């Protein structure tokens, strides 16, 4: 079965990004497909490569990046939500005249249409948020 997943809250602040990660790992292990995870609202903050969590804590961004590398899951960060919150890739930074970018490997910035498309093309949609 194809399952689409939405993450709506920021990492560390809320358990949503952890719950979603555990859920996706379990879904893949059970033989389901998770073609895409969409990051919206504060969920876009998961994608920053600049976070430095304490060494005895999990690294949420690295967990997701590794998952994408292993399973080819498409990690999409909503561009509108990301712009408000200061998450940019190199292209966006250039376009907006910003002097730095901060998106981690495995994540890509795209439009809300990717959320709707995911909902249309999957059999189930599961949302994690606050």
């Amino acid at each position: 079965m194809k399952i689409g997943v939405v993450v709506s809250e920021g990492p560390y602040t809320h358990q949503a990004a952890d719950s979603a990660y555990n859920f996706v790992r379990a879904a893949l292990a059970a033989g389901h497909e998770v073609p895409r995870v969409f990051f919206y609202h504060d969920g876009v903050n998961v994608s920053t490569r600049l976070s430095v969590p304490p060494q005895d804590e999990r690294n949420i961004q690295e967990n997701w990046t590794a998952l994408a590398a292993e399973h080819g899951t498409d990690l999409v960060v909503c561009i509108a939500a990301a712009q408000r919150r200061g998450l940019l890739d190199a292209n966006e930074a250039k376009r907006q005249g910003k002097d730095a970018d901060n998106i981690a490997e495995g994540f890509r910035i795209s439009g809300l249409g990717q959320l709707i498309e995911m909902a249309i093309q999957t059999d189930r949609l599961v949302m994690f948020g606050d």
Partner: protein
Amino acid sequence: MSEDVKKFLYVNRKAPYGTIYALEALEVVLIGAAFDQDVSLAFLDDGVFQLTSGQDTAAIGVKNFSPTFRALGDYEVTRLYVERESLEERGLSAEDLQEITYEDEDDDWAEKPSIRVVSREEMAAIMAEQDVILSF
């Protein structure tokens, strides 16, 4: 209705301005309208506060997005279900909400109200017939 059309319900349960969920939900609805799906919006619990008339955000320095609801008809989003019990618990009635209308192309473009006040039981039935439920 073609097989590619799914029933989408956007569920709004949070008040406006205190948090961004209401505004960012509306942004999804506007983008989603381009996908020719069967779209409805549900307002229950504190979500009914999103639709009050006379919102004036000048003194808090935040953008007033409530006029956007009136544009939904132009995007062919014409069904805004509002739960009666949620209104009543909050001391509100349909008269406290802004007027939101659409032009019905199947009825000679007659102007009709988009807001439909429904009971909690009807709301539960509406939720149960969807393919996709997006929660905000």
